[in-house]
C-alpha cells in the first residue's frame, strides 16, 4: 500500500515539532532552523523556476524584502511579530507580481535573460533599500521586539516557526505539483508556445507561481530578521542567495516537489557540518564540485528518477473496449443555419521582409474537410499558425463561430474550440505520452478535470493506436507515432475546428491509408477539419473543397479534382502546364 505524500508530510512534521521539548542544546535547534530556512527558500524558488524553467536570480530580493518588511514594521512601528510575517508575504508577493507583470509580457526574456533581469532588479531594490530611510546604512535593531513564546526557548520558537513554514512550503509545492497549475507550469517548461496554443494561460500561471514563490521567500525573510535581530544589507541583495537555491534545487531535482528540500538539507548539512577553519573552505570547494558533477552527470537531480509524474489513477480501468463504447461527447455542431464556422478576411503576415500571407480570405463550413494546398513556402503553415494564435496577424480579421478572434491570446482561441497539430511534432518532452494528450483535455475547450482528462486521453490513444505507448516518453516514439501523438493531442480538447498541418508527411502508403480512415472518422464525429497536405492522394480522397495558396495568396478554390486541373494551379506546382 502506498502511503500518500501528504500523510508523510504530516507525520514527519508532527515528529519534528516535538524536538524542542527535548531541550537539546541551542546549537542543534539553530542548525535545524537553518535547514528548514533553506528548505523554504529552495522549495519556494522551485515552484516557479524549477517547474516552469524560468530560473529566477532574484530570490534574494524577495527574501530581503520580507526581511525588511518585518524589520521595519516590528522594529519601527511596533507591529506584533507574527502579523509582520503576513505583511512580509504580502509585500513580497505584490512586488513579485508587479515585476512578473512587466517581464513576462516580453517573449524573448526567457532562459538566461530572465535570470539576468531578475538579478539586476535585485541589485536595484537593494540599492534603493540601502539608500533610503528603510535601511539607510545603520540597519535596523530588533532586540527589543517581543518574540511570542510558542516554545520553551527562543531558539525552540525559531525552530518551530521555521518548521511550520517549511511544512507549509513543501505542502504548497506538492499541491501545485499535482494541480492544474503544476501541469501547466511543466508544460511551459517544455514548450511554452505550444502550451499556450493548447490552452494553458501561460502568463497568468507564471505570474501566480512567481507571486507564491515570492510570498514564501518573504516569510522566510521575516523570520530570519527576528532570528538575527540586527538587520543589515549584508549579502542579501546579491547573487549569493539565488545561486545557493539553484544549487540546492538542481542537486535535489527541480521536477520533484521534494527535490529542493533534499538538496537544501544536504548542502546545508555539508556547509555547516564543516565549521572549523580549513574544513570550511574545503566544504565550499566540495559544494562547487558537487554542483559541477550534478549538472554534468545528474541533470535530473537526485530525485530525478522519481520526477516523472504519474498520471492520476482513473477509477474505471476495465476493458478499453468498454471505454470505446463510452465515447466522449462529440463537439457541438455549429448552430443550424450557420453557413460558416471560420472566416478569414484580408489576412496578412510578414516575417523579416518576406510576405508569408498576403491578404488571404477564405471560409470554412461546418462539418467539411477543407484542403489547404500549395507549393512550399506558399503560406499554409503560417495561416495555421495565425488562426491558432501562435502568431499574430499584421492585418486582417479572423471570425470563428461569429466571434472575432484576431489578436486574442492563443489560450483563449484554444478555449473557443480550435486545435491544431504541428508539422514537425512538438510534444512536451518530459511528459509521458498520455500526459501529453491529457493536457489539452484539461486546458482546451473540453476543460475536463484531471481524472476525466486521463480517461479522455486514453480514449484518443486507443483511437490513434498509441495505447500501448501510453507511459512512454515522446523521445521513444518514431516519427509515425509522434505524428499520431500530435493528432491525439489535438483531438483531446474536443475542438470544433481541427487544423492538421501535414500529418501525413513521412508516412508509408499503408500508414497513410490508416490515417485517411482515421481522419474521416474524426469528421464523422462532428469535427470540421482544415487539412494542409502535400500527399495529393489523401487530399483527393478526403477533402470536400480545397483552397490553393501560392506566395501567400489564394489562387484557386473549389472541388479538388476540378481545382487541381486548372492551369494556374498546375503552373504553381510544376512550373509550366502539363497536359
Amino acid at each position: 500500500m502506498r502511503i500518500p505524500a501528504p500523510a508523510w508530510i504530516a507525520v514527519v512534521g508532527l515528529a519534528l515539532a516535538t524536538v524542542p521539548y527535548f531541550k537539546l542544546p541551542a546549537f542543534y535547534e539553530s542548525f535545524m532552523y537553518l535547514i528548514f530556512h533553506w528548505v523554504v527558500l529552495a522549495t519556494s524558488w522551485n515552484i516557479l523556476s524549477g517547474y516552469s524553467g524560468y530560473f529566477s536570480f532574484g530570490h534574494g530580493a524577495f527574501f530581503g524584502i520580507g526581511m525588511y518588511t518585518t524589520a521595519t514594521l516590528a522594529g519601527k512601528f511596533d507591529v506584533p511579530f507574527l502579523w509582520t510575517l503576513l505583511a512580509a508575504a504580502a509585500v513580497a508577493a505584490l512586488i513579485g507580481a508587479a515585476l512578473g507583470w512587466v517581464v513576462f509580457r516580453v517573449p524573448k526574456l526567457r532562459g538566461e535573460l530572465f535570470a539576468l533581469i531578475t538579478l539586476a532588479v535585485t541589485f536595484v531594490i537593494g540599492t534603493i533599500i540601502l539608500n533610503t530611510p528603510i535601511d539607510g546604512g545603520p540597519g535596523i535593531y530588533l532586540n527589543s521586539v517581543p518574540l511570542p513564546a510558542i516554545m520553551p526557548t527562543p531558539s525552540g520558537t525559531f525552530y518551530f516557526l521555521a518548521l511550520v513554514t517549511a511544512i507549509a512550503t513543501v505542502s504548497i509545492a506538492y499541491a501545485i505539483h499535482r494541480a492544474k497549475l503544476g501541469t501547466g507550469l511543466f508544460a511551459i517548461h517544455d514548450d511554452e508556445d505550444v502550451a499556450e496554443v493548447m490552452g494553458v494561460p501561460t502568463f497568468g500561471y507564471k505570474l501566480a507561481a512567481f507571486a507564491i514563490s515570492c510570498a514564501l521567500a518573504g516569510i522566510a525573510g521575516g523570520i530570519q530578521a527576528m532570528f538575527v535581530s540586527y538587520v543589515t544589507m549584508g549579502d542579501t541583495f546579491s547573487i549569493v542567495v539565488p545561486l545557493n537555491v539553484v544549487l540546492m534545487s538542481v542537486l535535489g531535482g527541480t521536477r520533484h516537489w521534494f527535490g529542493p528540500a533534499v538538496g537544501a538539507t544536504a548542502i546545508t548539512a555539508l556547509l555547516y557540518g564543516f565549521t572549523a577553519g580549513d574544513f570550511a573552505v574545503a566544504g565550499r570547494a566540495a559544494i562547487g564540485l558537487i554542483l559541477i558533477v550534478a549538472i554534468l552527470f545528474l541533470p535530473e537531480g537526485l530525485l530525478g528518477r522519481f520526477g516523472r509524474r504519474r498520471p492520476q489513477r482513473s477509477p474505471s480501468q476495465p476493458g478499453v473496449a468498454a471505454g470505446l463504447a463510452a465515447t466522449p461527447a462529440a463537439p457541438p455542431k455549429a448552430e443550424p443555419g450557420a453557413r460558416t464556422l471560420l472566416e478569414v478576411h484580408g489576412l496578412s503576415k510578414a516575417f523579416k521582409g518576406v510576405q508569408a500571407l498576403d491578404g488571404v480570405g477564405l471560409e470554412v463550413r461546418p462539418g467539411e474537410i477543407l484542403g489547404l494546398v500549395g507549393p512550399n513556402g506558399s503560406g499554409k503553415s503560417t495561416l495555421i499558425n495565425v488562426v491558432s494564435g501562435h502568431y499574430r496577424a499584421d492585418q486582417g480579421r479572423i471570425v470563428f463561430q461569429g466571434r472575432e478572434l484576431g489578436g486574442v491570446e492563443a489560450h483563449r482561441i484554444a478555449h473557443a474550440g480550435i486545435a491544431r497539430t504541428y508539422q514537425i511534432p512538438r510534444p512536451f518532452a518530459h511528459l509521458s505520452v498520455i500526459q501529453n494528450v491529457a493536457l489539452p483535455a484539461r486546458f482546451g475547450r473540453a476543460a475536463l478535470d484531471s481524472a476525466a482528462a486521463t480517461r479522455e486521453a486514453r480514449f484518443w490513444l486507443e483511437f490513434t493506436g498509441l495505447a500501448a505507448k501510453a507511459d512512454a516518453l515522446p523521445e521513444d516514439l518514431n516519427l509515425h507515432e509522434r505524428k499520431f501523438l500530435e493528432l491525439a493531442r489535438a483531438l483531446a480538447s474536443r475542438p470544433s475546428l481541427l487544423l492538421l498541418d501535414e500529418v501525413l508527411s513521412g508516412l508509408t502508403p499503408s500508414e497513410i491509408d490508416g490515417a485517411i480512415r482515421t481522419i474521416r472518422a474524426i469528421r464523422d464525429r462532428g469535427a470540421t477539419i482544415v487539412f494542409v497536405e502535400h500527399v495529393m492522394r489523401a487530399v483527393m480522397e478526403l477533402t470536400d473543397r480545397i483552397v490553393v495558396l501560392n506566395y501567400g495568396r489564394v489562387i484557386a478554390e473549389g472541388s479538388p479534382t476540378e481545382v487541381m486541373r486548372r492551369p494556374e494551379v498546375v503552373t504553381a506546382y510544376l512550373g509550366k502546364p502539363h497536359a
Partner: protein
Amino acid sequence: MNLPSLTLLGQSLLSGIFIGALYGLLGLGLSLSWGMLRQINLAHFALAFLGAYLTYQLASAGMDPLATLLVILPCFFAFGVALHWVFARFSISPFNSLLVTFGVTVIIESLIQWIWTADYRRLESHYGEMKFRIGTLFVPFPELLTLLVAIALSLATWAALRYTDLGKALRAAAEDAPIAAAFGVNERALALLLSGLAAAFAGVAGACLALSYTLAPSQIYAWVGVVFAAVMIGGLGNPIGPLVAGIVIGVSEALTMALTAPAWAPLVSFSLLIVVLLARPRKF
C-alpha cells in the same frame, strides 16, 4: 545637492573612465565566449581574481608585475581550452554553462581563500607609485595602463575578427557552425582557441586588477553584476562593446557618486541593464 568643483568633476570623470576600462577588460573575454561560443562563463571573474592573486604573489617574490603574465597567460589559456572541451563533450546548454561555471567559481574562490586567506592583499609595486598630472587632474599609472591595455586588446580583437581569415571563420562558426565546417572551417579547434583566449584575457584583467586594487576573495562577486551589464549593453560577441558600455557605466556611476551619494552608483548600471533588456528588440 552641492555642485562640486570642476576639478572634482574632472577627477570623477577620469576615475569613471578608468574603472569603466576595467569593466570592459573584464567583460571582453566574457562577451566573446558568451556571444560566440554560447558559454556563459561565470568563472571568468574568479579566474581574473586568481590571476590577480598570482600576479601579486609572483611580484612579491620579485618578478615585475607585468612579466608575471608570461607565466600566467599560458596556464590560463590551457584552462580555457579545457573548459570548452568539457562543455562541448557534454553538450552543455548556455544556461547550464552558467551553473557549471558557478561551481568552478566556488572552487577557485575556495582555493584562493585557502592559499591567501581572506585577508586583504595589496600589491606594492613601482608602478603603483607612478602618477602623472594633466592640469589639475591626477592620473595614476596603473589605471592608465588598464585603460591602454583595454583599448589595445579590444581593438586588436575587433580587427582580428573583422579583417583576418581566422576572424571571419570564427564569426561564421559562431553563427552557423555546421555550414562553416562544410566550407572547411575547423570550428571545433577554433572554439577551443577562442575559449583559451577568453581565459587569457581574464588573466590580463587580473594583472590590471592587482596593480590598482586591494584584493580579497569576497570581492569576486562584486564585479559580476556590473560587468554582465556592460557585456549585455555592449552587445554579445562585440569586442568593442564591453569597453564602450563599461566606460559609459563607469562615468555614469562616477558622476552619480560625485553629484549625489556613492551608494547610488549600482543603480546606474543595473537600471541601464533592465532598460536594455526590456527595450532592445534584438535577440541575444
